[in-house]
């Protein structure tokens, strides 16, 4: 088969989207060709690379990425500049990552007054309020509790702000800026319900106030129903103690809820019968509507997907075969389906979803595409098992006030120009 030829492969939707099994068929052909070729190649010391001819580096205590991959970095966003350098975010470089899990050093950060340097020996978690007995726990105490492990995303509800009602035209930014205040890890920790049971939470308790030990004293109200369901006090992130910027020594993890509620550097939980109406759940993470009223406690993150390849900041490398690949997730449950369009949404093809498909955990989706070099618009649309479907940007935008930026889970589109330039477009 000629490279780049799609003639004999079944088309799944318009403008070159191929049946998702096309890659597999094609790679079989290619693999056998390679095997035949390699049996004929001669290998001698003269033709071997230098690193095969000198012993490599010895061992090290903590592994580091190859120096050739140093370009994969979080980019910082500091809305207040030098006045408040610790208020802002850094974004996961989705353009350089594959698969589902975010490496710990690239997990997005969001803080409101910097990352505290907490000595776990001096840190305590206090549980009080509507409980039989107020209790405190040391970090070492918590290490002796039963733990659970689950993979899930954390997404700041400001993810998508560069395509929100805050901006009047699409921003030309890397996919990490557009969607990268969402990261995924395997989290391990103590179910919060165990500590609430131990303190003897009273039956008419309805909310908790969770508070961090940072210089913003970050605090949020959390429904007791969520706390007793699947909330954990996370101590480990991808197997190692959670990173300072993710809340070391302990943070809340509320699968599917907006990032700000996963209070980091957790120091206190007060059981209450009503929300506390903290600054960050009224002034900030609330959703202003066109009629001037605002929604409070829109806690679950909507179903969403984004194409991370091809995507900004990169360019197309000429016409031919591409794997269109991205991430899809939902705070309501499991992703059931992701469709991809290469013709501005006129026709759609179902993408292959990577297993395992878990609730509140992203899936990687992939669909093969033959780009014929003509101007094209790529889009992805996710569905979840609660019946939610990602909506067009125009529809999302009309629901909210001018300037509103939270919970933008609308469809995002990449324009591909004939010269291979990629741009973020509103279609």
């Amino acid at each position: 088969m000629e490279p780049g030829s799609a003639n004999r492969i079944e088309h799944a939707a318009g403008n070159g989207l191929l049946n998702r099994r096309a890659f597999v068929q094609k790679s079989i052909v290619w693999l056998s060709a390679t095997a035949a070729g390699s049996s004929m190649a001669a290998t001698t010391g003269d033709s071997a690379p230098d690193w095969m001819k000198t012993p490599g580096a010895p061992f090290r205590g903590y592994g580091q990425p190859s120096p050739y991959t140093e370009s994969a970095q979080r980019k910082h966003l500091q809305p207040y500049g030098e006045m408040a350098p610790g208020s802002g975010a850094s974004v996961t470089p989705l353009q350089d990552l594959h698969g589902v899990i975010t490496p710990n050093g690239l997990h997005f950060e969001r803080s409101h007054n910097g990352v505290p340097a907490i000595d776990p020996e001096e840190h305590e978690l206090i549980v009080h309020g509507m409980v039989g007995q107020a209790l405190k726990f040391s970090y070492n105490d918590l290490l002796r509790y039963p733990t659970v492990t689950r993979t899930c995303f954390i997404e700041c509800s400001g993810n998508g702000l560069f395509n929100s009602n805050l901006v009047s035209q699409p921003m030309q930014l890397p996919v990490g800026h557009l969607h990268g205040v969402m990261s995924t890890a395997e989290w391990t920790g103590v179910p919060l319900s165990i500590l609430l049971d131990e303190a003897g939470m009273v039956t008419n308790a309805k909310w908790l106030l969770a508070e961090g030990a940072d210089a913003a004293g970050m605090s949020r109200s959390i429904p007791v129903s969520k706390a007793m369901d699947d909330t954990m006090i996370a101590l480990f992130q991808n197997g190692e103690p959670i990173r300072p910027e993710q809340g070391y020594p302990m943070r809340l993890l509320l699968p599917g809820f907006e990032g700000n509620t996963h209070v980091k550097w957790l120091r206190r939980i007060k059981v209450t019968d009503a929300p506390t109406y903290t600054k960050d759940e009224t002034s900030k993470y609330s959703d202003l509507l066109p009629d001037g009223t605002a929604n409070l406690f829109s806690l679950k993150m909507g179903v969403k997907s984004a194409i991370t390849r091809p995507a900004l900041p990169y360019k197309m490398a000429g016409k031919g075969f591409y794997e269109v690949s991205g991430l899809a997730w939902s705070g309501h449950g499991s992703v059931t389906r992701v469709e991809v369009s290469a013709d501005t949404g006129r026709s759609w093809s179902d993408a292959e979803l990577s297993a395992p498909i878990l609730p509140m955990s992203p899936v990687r989706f992939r669909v093969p595409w033959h780009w014929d070099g003509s101007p094209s618009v790529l889009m992805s649309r996710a569905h979840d098992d609660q019946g939610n479907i990602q909506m067009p940007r125009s529809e999302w935008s009309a629901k909210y006030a001018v300037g509103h930026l939270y919970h933008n889970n609308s469809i995002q589109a990449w324009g591909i120009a004939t010269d291979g330039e990629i741009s973020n477009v509103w279609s």
Partner: protein
Amino acid sequence: MLMIAISLYVTSVQAAEVSPGLGQSIDSEEVSSVDISIDPRGENLPAGSGTAVSGATVYADKCAACHGTDANGGDGLADSLVGGIGTLATEKPVKTVISYWPYATTLFDYTRRAMPLDAPMTLTDEEVYAVSAYLLFLGGVIEETHELNAQSLREVQMPNRDGFQSVWPDM
């Protein structure tokens, strides 16, 4: 009797299985030393009081550098804290403490825990009452001489008090 003994035993085994029970009891004094959150009922507001008159000095010394002399923001400044009343349903909504926040207790709670940003938790409770009164006065919500204390703060009616609806089903 035997039945009861068995069921008690089962319960305690279950409890032992799910928790090593290492939480240390703490008394109300220890709790109140860390319980700084204040809800709209204001039951947790501390003693003390202040007015806009003394609050103006606190603001000028400790807030103006970042939030502007008039507290209404601007280029290179942090969030504007006053103004914007009546703009929320327009093409140019301006969300500030005064135009948007439903409860004055949140202003006290947040200022006391997080401001000034470069030295949080350094204001006295008197200063927090005073600077809160000053911002509410600047925003036209209270009179300059109106004293804020644990009782009067929770009675302040914010302009956008009824502007919110919860979308969480189980309130």
